[in-house]
């Protein structure tokens, strides 16, 4: 059903008010499944993987070119890369973790930010038009990296007992309800946190892509007889949604890194 339905949407026959009674080919899960481009030893390589690899290449190349031979008086590329690096460093890491503790995690956060942002931006690049992070595996692995980092930092910083106290928010002054509080904190920190961290990015990109596909397909589907103005409205909506998506993509990359920093900050902080 996957490829056929997408093909139908762009056939001339399938229109509103057409005699053949062709229904609106609504986007769905099939919009997120791709046929493999080629197979290497039973391993299927598809468009999403290609985009993820491209993203890695772009991030690595741009930052290597910019900082490989860093000059005191920066060129254009170095200036832009420095602005981006400084935005994450000052705007996110220093704000949450402080200069002393945070400096060590700046490289991780900068790479996360630009990796996620470029993965999201593929959503509106012509011909590519698919946000890599709308496939749950990618945000899940990124959230797992952050999770492993902050949990190991907690136990390294506070020791075994102190680490558990930090994770559960154990506090003697709470009296008997401290067990209830600890249980809820444990549940929310160790189980809910990584889940929402990954799903927030995934669901934003998933919903955004669905919306873009819907308006794009609708402007094609409505292009018949007296409904042509409606197709125009749908096309304008596509453009508006693209602008909105550009904003959402940047915000989601920002939020992902901001949350990663605040988790790390919680791991580094002294429990009380």
């Amino acid at each position, binding site marked *: 059903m996957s490829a056929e339905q997408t093909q139908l949407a762009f056939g001339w026959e399938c229109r509103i008010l057409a005699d053949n009674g062709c229904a609106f080919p609504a986007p769905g899960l099939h919009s997120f499944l791709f046929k493999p481009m080629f197979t290497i030893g039973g391993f299927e390589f598809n468009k999403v993987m290609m985009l993820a690899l491209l993203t890695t290449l772009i991030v690595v190349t741009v930052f290597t070119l910019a900082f490989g031979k860093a000059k005191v008086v920066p060129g254009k590329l170095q200036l832009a890369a420095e602005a981006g690096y400084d935005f994450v460093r000052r*705007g996110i890491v220093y704000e949450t973790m402080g200069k002393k503790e945070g400096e060590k995690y700046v490289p991780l956060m900068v790479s996360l930010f630009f990796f996620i942002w470029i993965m999201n931006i593929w959503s509106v690049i012509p011909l590519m038009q698919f946000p890599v992070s709308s496939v749950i595996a990618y945000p899940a692995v990124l959230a797992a990296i952050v999770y492993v980092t902050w949990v190991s930092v907690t136990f390294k910083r506070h020791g075994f007992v102190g680490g558990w106290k930090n994770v559960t928010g154990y506090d003697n002054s709470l009296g008997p309800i401290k067990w209830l509080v600890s249980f809820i904190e444990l549940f929310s920190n160790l189980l809910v946190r990584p889940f929402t961290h990954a*799903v927030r990015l995934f*669901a934003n990109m*998933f919903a955004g892509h669905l919306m873009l596909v819907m308006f794009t397909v609708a402007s094609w589907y409505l292009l018949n007889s007296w409904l042509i103005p409606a197709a125009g409205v749908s096309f304008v909506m596509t453009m508006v949604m693209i602008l909105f998506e550009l904003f959402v993509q940047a*915000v989601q990359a*920002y*939020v992902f890194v*901001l949350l990663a920093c*605040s988790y790390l900050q919680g791991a580094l902080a002294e429990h009380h």
Partner: protein
Amino acid sequence: MSASIELAAGVSGSLGSIGYGLAAIGPGIGVGIVFGNGTQALARQPEAAGLIRANQILGFAFCEALALIGIVLPFVYGK
């Protein structure tokens, strides 16, 4: 009573859409509160704009996540 239960059991169609409409009420209120109070804070203390904006976006993301989980669930559990 039993008649209304029978009636409810007979409801069919795009129930996912109705469910999502209901699910969007809470996050909608939440996002409204976040930006309303954020704007108020900005008006009262324009010099703290950077800090307020960061927290505003964080609160927005927390609320919005609920609505987005609502979008995804019908795809996961539908059919």
